[in-house]
């Protein structure tokens, strides 16, 4: 019976069984790098978007500037009336003790240290200068910190991490292309005589390159699918580890849909790399054939 699937008999020229395995390894690395980009972006977003604000009221039980109430009460009243603030929480005495114990080596009361009142809140506004001025007027010496400097460092860190992840992705793609090119050249060299015969019978470069490219793309896609699947359990585990660092980061019970879509996109991306690389390699090789 005639071979209708492989009418030019070129299937035999592209038998490299190692290629899908090597592409799978690259896809696995690509999956981790993509997850890294997503995690860094999500963490940076969550830390920057939900800025934490901390207020320290020294001598909280003393009289406020107005003299009508305590410094603590005056500060809390101003904070409660500020719309950019959310989740106001005054740390309890025990929370403060727990916070300071590692630094003090004992509890503050036994050391005779006066403790400030510490209030935390979420801050979604811009510059807190007006709020700081209002607090200082009501209770002079009150400290307000948004952690802006720390957030800027985190942003720089995550940006550099994202850049590294993108560089890894580019490297992985380049290595995958090199692997496809090597496998293709090996197949061409092993089948030089058969290809020369087919070319001598009038096959166009596009016919021969197209046959090879279809197989190259198929093998790359198969390898990438395997690699992406293998990356999933690893990513779920990493997501579980990253869960405490931010609500927007990958959750322990699953991966964000966008990340899953990006992982799925590795497969067509690998197919495109395989197809283009094989086409270029075969056409270049055929030009050398004469």
């Amino acid at each position, binding site marked *: *019976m*005639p*071979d*209708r699937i492989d*009418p*030019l*008999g070129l299937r*035999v020229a592209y038998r490299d069984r190692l290629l899908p395995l090597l592409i799978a390894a690259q896809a696995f690395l690509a999956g981790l790098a993509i997850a890294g980009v997503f995690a860094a972006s999500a963490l940076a977003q969550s830390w920057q978007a939900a800025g934490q604000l901390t207020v320290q009221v020294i001598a909280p039980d003393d009289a406020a500037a107005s003299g009508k109430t305590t410094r603590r009460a005056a500060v809390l009243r101003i904070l409660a009336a500020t719309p950019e603030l959310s989740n106001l929480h005054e740390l309890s005495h025990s929370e403060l003790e727990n916070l300071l114990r590692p630094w003090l080596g004992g509890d503050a009361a036994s050391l005779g240290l006066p403790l400030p009142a510490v209030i935390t809140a979420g801050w979604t506004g811009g510059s807190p200068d007006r709020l700081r001025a209002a607090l200082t007027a009501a209770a002079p010496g009150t400290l307000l910190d948004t952690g802006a400097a720390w957030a800027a460092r985190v942003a720089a860190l995550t940006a550099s991490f994202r850049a590294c992840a993108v560089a890894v992705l580019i490297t992985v793609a380049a290595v995958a292309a090199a692997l496809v090119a090597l496998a293709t050249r090996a197949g061409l060299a092993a089948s030089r*005589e*058969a290809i020369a*015969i*087919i*070319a*001598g*019978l*009038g*096959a*166009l*470069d596009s*016919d021969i390159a197209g046959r090879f490219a279809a197989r190259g793309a198929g093998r790359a896609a198969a390898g990438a699918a395997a690699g992406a699947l293998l990356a999933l359990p690893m990513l779920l585990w990493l997501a579980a580890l990253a869960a405490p660092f931010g609500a927007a980061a990958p959750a322990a019970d699953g991966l964000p849909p966008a990340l899953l879509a990006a992982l799925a996109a590795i497969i067509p991306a690998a197919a495109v790399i395989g197809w283009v690389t094989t086409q270029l390699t075969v056409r270049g090789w*055929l*030009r050398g054939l*004469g």
Partner: protein
Amino acid sequence: MQTRPDSQPTLIRFEDVSLRYRQPDAAVDALVLQNLSFAIPAGGFRWLTGPSGAGKTSVLNLITRAARPASGRIHLFGLDAANLNRRETALLRRRIGVVYQDFRLLGHLSVFDNIALPTRIARWPEPRIQADVTDLLGWTGLKEKSACRPAQLSGGEQQRVAFARAVVGQPKLLVADEPTGNLDDAQAERLLLLILALNRLGTTVVVATHNARLIARHPAPVLELAAGRLRPADA
């Protein structure tokens, strides 16, 4: 033998053609053909003869564009071969049937698929391929061997598969390099009669052989090569 008069349009024209082959370890390329000039009309038949190493296969390689001349011009089917790009060269090759001295069959394909290869390259419809290849299998006595691989065939059978593959695409030009080299006299005669039948149907034929008896039995214009040069017709 009847051959068409040279008033027919010229199908192959060599003008002062030379060919050099690069030698890996030599400083100078080997000059294998020197200043060849000849013309073959459409529908013509030419013997290409000469001793081994005279350059017969090189001439056929130039005709099939498997080699490029170092100098001179080659016109094929009215086209200047030097001006053909890769696509045009491939399309030109589809109009040429080639019987190679060493058959050049694809070992992993069946006899049927080997014969069908030029038609599949030319993207003929499959029903037509089935019909034509089946006809040729019968014509060349290979019907029972249709599913065999070339390695399962005798030299003569492989020669016939190579011939069937060369003619299945109904080429305008058939070039054959020692097509009877692996055949006994009876088989050689039978194959030559097939080639002559094609020539009578209008196919231009160039047969390279050093078999003087074969040429004597089927007289036709001869291109005789000696040391890469064409001997004058009256020499």
